[in-house]
C-alpha cells in the first residue's frame, strides 16, 4: 500500500536503509504487520504513533537487532535480515549508532570512557579514542565532567553523554528510540538541538522514534505507525 512511496525513493537513489513488508510477532502478539519504510541518506525521519503500535520493533528490525518473521531489510545494498548474527553485529558496531530512552551507559565507567566506547570497539587506539571523546564535552555543555562516573550524573547530563556515544564514530545511521522520553522540556531541547546539528554536520541518517510532536518537528519528515504498519504523511500523489 505504501510501497509506491518506497520505490520512488529507491529510483531516486541515495537510499540509506529500507524495510519492506516487515512482519514480526511476539508469540501471539503481532507487532509488525507489513511495515514499509525507506529512508534516504542524510535524512532525519521521525517515527510516530500510539504506544504499542510497533515503533520500537520497527526500529530494532531496521537496526538488525531483531530479525523479522518475513519481509526484507536493505542496508547499503545488503540484506540485513539474511545475514548471520556475527555479521549483523559487526555491521551494528561499525556502521550504526544507538541512543535509547534511558541512556544505558556503563555506570562504572567515566563519562569520557562511555563516549569513547564505540571507537574502542571498532579498534581505535585507547588514547586517540579518549581524545576524540573529550572533544565532545564542550558542545555537550559538560565541560569538566569528563572524568565523572555516569552513575553520578543527572538524567539530562547522562542522556547527552549517551547521545555523544551514539554519534562519536560518525555512524551511517543513528537509531534513536525515545531519546528525550525521560527528559524535561529544557533537556529535551538540548538533546534534540545537538542530535540534529551533529547528524547534519556528519551526514548521518537518523531514525528517531518519538511520540512527542515537538521532538518530531526536528526531523525532515514524519511517518506514523499504526497497528504495525507505516502510514506516510507525505502528501498523497495521484
Amino acid at each position, binding site marked *: 500500500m505504501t510501497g509506491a512511496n518506497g520505490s520512488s525513493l529507491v529510483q531516486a537513489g541515495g537510499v540509506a536503509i529500507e524495510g519492506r513488508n516487515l512482519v514480526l510477532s511476539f508469540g501471539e502478539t503481532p507487532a509488525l504487520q507489513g511495515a514499509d519504510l525507506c529512508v534516504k541518506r542524510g535524512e532525519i525521519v521521525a517515527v510516530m504513533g500510539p504506544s504499542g503500535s510497533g515503533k520500537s520493533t520497527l526500529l530494532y528490525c531496521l537496526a538488525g537487532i531483531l530479525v523479522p518473521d518475513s519481509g526484507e531489510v536493505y542496508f547499503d545494498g545488503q540484506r540485513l535480515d539474511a545475514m548471520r548474527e556475527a555479521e549483523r553485529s559487526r555491521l551494528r558496531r561499525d556502521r550504526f549508532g544507538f541512543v535509547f530512552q534511558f541512556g544505558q551507559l556503563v555506570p562504572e565507567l567515566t563519562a569520557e570512557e562511555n563516549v569513547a566506547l564505540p571507537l574502542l570497539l571498532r579498534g581505535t587506539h585507547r588514547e586517540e579514542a579518549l581524545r576524540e571523546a573529550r572533544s565532545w564535552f564542550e558542545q555537550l555543555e559538560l565541560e569538566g565532567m569528563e572524568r565523572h562516573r555516569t552513575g553520578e550524573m543527572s538524567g539530562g547530563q547522562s542522556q547527552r553523554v549517551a547521545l555523544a556515544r551514539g554519534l562519536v564514530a560518525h555512524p551511517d545511521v543513528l537509531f534513536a528510540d525515545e531519546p528525550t522520553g525521560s527528559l524535561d522540556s529544557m533537556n529535551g531541547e538540548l538533546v534534540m538541538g545537538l542530535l540534529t546539528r551533529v547528524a547534519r554536520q556528519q551526514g548521518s541518517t537518523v531514525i528517531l522514534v518519538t511520540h512527542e*510532536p515537538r521532538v518530531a*518537528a*526536528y526531523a525532515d519528515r514524519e511517518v506514523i505507525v499504526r497497528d504495525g504498519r507505516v502510514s506516510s504523511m507525505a502528501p498523497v500523489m495521484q
Partner: protein
Amino acid sequence: MSVPMALLGLLDREPSHGYDLKHDYDAYFARGRPLPFGQVYATLARLARDGKAIVGEAEPGAGPDRKRYTITETGKSEVEAWLAEPIPAEPYLQTDLFVKVVLSLMLGRRAEEYLDAQRAAHLRRMRELTELKQRDSLVDTLLADHGLFHLEADLRWIDLTEARLAALAEEVAS
C-alpha cells in the same frame, strides 16, 4: 494583541520618537505584520490625549514625525498593572477544528481523513517553527516555542479524538 499597551511599554524604557517605537515593535512583536506609520501616530496621539504620554516639540529641521514622546506617571502605572495582570485563560472552545470533526461525524463523513490532514499541516508548521529556533536568537526561540506548545496541544487533542471517533460518531448521530 494590545498595540497601545505594547507601544506604551516600549516607551517606558526611555523617551522615543514614533519611528523608533515602530522599529522596535516590528522587530519584537510584529512577526511579518509591520505596524503602519498611521497607526503608530494615531495610537501615540491617543495615549497623549489620555495623559499617558507627553508629546515634545517637533525637532528643528525634521519632518512632522520628529517628535519625542515621554511616558507620564499615569502611563507608567498603567504599564506596571498591565504586565502583572494575567490574560484570560482562553480555552479555544469555538475552534473550527472541533466544528469540523463534529459536522463530519453528523454528516457520516470520514473524520479520520480530515484529522490526518490536519495533523500533517500542524507538523509541517511545527517543523518551520523548529527551524526558526536554529537561528540562535533567543527571542525568536521564545516565540517559536509558544507556537510549538500550542500546536502540540492541538495534536494531542487530535490523537485522542481519533482514538474515540467511533464512540463520538454514535453520540452525535443520536
